[in-house]
């Protein structure tokens, strides 16, 4: 059963809600400790998974909580990716400034994109977001002089060293540094998402997902709340894109393509839409599913497909969504 956790009816149960926070902190601590035990390869791939999981966390806010299915989030991921990558490569910004530029680009694009796309709903919303993202993808190809199109470009030299205002500096090419920066971003986004979905705004988003008309007639400005969800979601997606560009030093148009709009949807569905940890679980699972099976067979997409079918049949609400329904209703 979905629980909004509006003011827990009885205070003695407050510790149950605590369990939700403990779980999230526990997962983050486990990810932190994991780097002590894992191989270099695993550290590299897990860093990548965590950055992509941030993308999924952002996607989930719009899709899982507000109930809006966007097929155009690649545009927002790419806004962050190019916002950071281009400003680093062409404007000579340092890594921290480029990261902020990516987030700012995502925020602006999400606000403009959301204002237009949210005039539609349902299937029309899916189509409009899809078309916008395609236009974004073609734009990244059109300006190939700067973006180098499909081929993309690699960030090299000074930009691989992030110097913070305090003089503190990080070597972004160092796998351990990269891992911990990715983990920090994930931690901020996960905890932020948890706080959001438990706030009054989060409850209104769920209310919109469950019954938009009723929500409007309870006095909520559903349009404004949907736009807010879109902008938060898009900005987090852009933060993920910006981090991806800076940590893995590659910026290419593939990340703006339709594939990168579908992937976060799959990750979120797999892990559990409308659960805070679901996007992380889904991204992790999908990544390792591909990683492990592709080591054994060239038909790995077939294995992935079968795995997805099994999940749809046995876990229709995603892993954590089904878990919440059956055994752990306290799961946020």
């Amino acid at each position: 059963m979905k629980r909004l956790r509006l003011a827990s009816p009885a205070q003695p149960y407050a510790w149950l809600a605590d369990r939700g926070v403990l779980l999230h902190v526990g997962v983050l601590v486990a990810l932190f400790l994991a780097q002590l035990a894992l191989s270099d390869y695993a550290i590299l791939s897990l860093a990548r998974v965590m950055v992509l999981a941030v993308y999924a966390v952002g996607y989930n806010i719009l899709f899982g909580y507000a109930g809006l299915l966007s097929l155009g989030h690649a545009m927002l991921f790419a806004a962050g990716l190019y916002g950071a990558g281009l400003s680093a490569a062409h404007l000579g910004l340092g890594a921290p400034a480029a990261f902020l530029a990516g987030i700012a680009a995502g925020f602006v694009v999400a606000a403009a994109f959301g204002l237009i796309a949210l005039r539609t709903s349902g299937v029309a919303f899916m189509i409009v977001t899809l078309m916008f993202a395609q236009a974004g993808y073609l734009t990244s190809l059109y300006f190939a002089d700067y973006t180098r199109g499909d081929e993309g470009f690699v960030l090299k030299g000074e930009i691989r060293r992030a110097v913070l205002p305090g003089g503190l500096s990080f070597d972004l090419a160092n796998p351990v540094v990269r891992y911990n920066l990715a983990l920090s971003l994930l931690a901020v986004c996960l905890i932020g998402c948890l706080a959001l979905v438990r706030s009054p705004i989060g409850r209104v988003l769920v209310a919109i997902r469950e019954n938009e008309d009723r929500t409007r007639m309870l006095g909520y400005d559903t349009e404004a709340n949907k736009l807010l969800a879109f902008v938060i979601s898009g900005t987090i997606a852009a933060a993920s894109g910006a981090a991806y560009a800076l940590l893995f030093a590659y910026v290419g148009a593939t990340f703006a393509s339709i594939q990168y709009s579908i992937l976060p949807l799959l990750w979120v569905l797999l892990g559990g839409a409308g659960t805070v940890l679901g996007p992380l679980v889904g991204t992790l699972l999908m990544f390792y599913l591909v990683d492990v099976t592709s080591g054994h067979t060239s038909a790995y997409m077939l294995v992935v497909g079968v795995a997805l079918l099994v999940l749809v049949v046995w876990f229709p609400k995603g892993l954590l969504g089904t878990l919440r329904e059956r055994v752990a209703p306290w799961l946020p």
Partner: protein
Amino acid sequence: MAAVTLLSTTGLSRHFGGLRAVDNVSFELAQGEVRAIIGPNGAGKSTFVGLICGRLAPTAGRIAFEGRDISGLPAHRRVGLGIAYTFQITSIYSNLTVYDNVALAAQSAMRSGVRRNGVRPLASPVAPEPVQVDARGLTPSSARGLTPSLERRVGDALDRVGLSDRREAKASTLSYGHQRLLEVAMGLALAPKLLILDEPTQGLSDAEIAGFCDLIRAIAREATVLLIEHNMDVVMRLAGRITVLNNGTILSEGTPAEIRADQAVQRAYLGT
């Protein structure tokens, strides 16, 4: 009744293509009244209240609430001013608990209460945004200052409709009659000045209807009630005044006794 006018419409019309669903209706509702709107099917009753609560935009005419022109306000702003609407077809959050359904209404009321009166609702703390109600549950000590007021509003609303023992039930598991009561509880939690009920007793058993009438009478002590109703027993028992709509216009208006005796009303219902 030397009453204050709560709601009035002037020349209110809504046309759907060639159909004049509501046509040039001028209507006044006094504060504290229980008013029933009756009329044959297709008379424009639901369209009329749809215009009042803002779900539909008028083709022409004005609507004033507490002397203020609200014709151009979107529906959610009108709810904030104190106009609550319960749907003709039950509209609740099926997947959420009874408690959460009502709490969403209470959260809205507490927020608009601040906006409406420029004061914080009872028992709210000094937080800049008084609706930052616990919900987290995880910080009960800091949240406790706020929680009681939301908690109390929800508890009150559920007590009044008699659903307190079902608060943890998923709304979709309630019986139809209970779902209708839940809708009324949501309306109550909004602490409205005007409660619009669109055919509330439709589909209820006789026993449920009797309980419902008691409930409406109790609500009427604090809020003005505008009731669309087909069940004449209910109308005669509850309404102080009745407005009869026919073909989108007001056919007649008066006390239940006057309406009962009205020839034109009888013709409209029975055909000539």
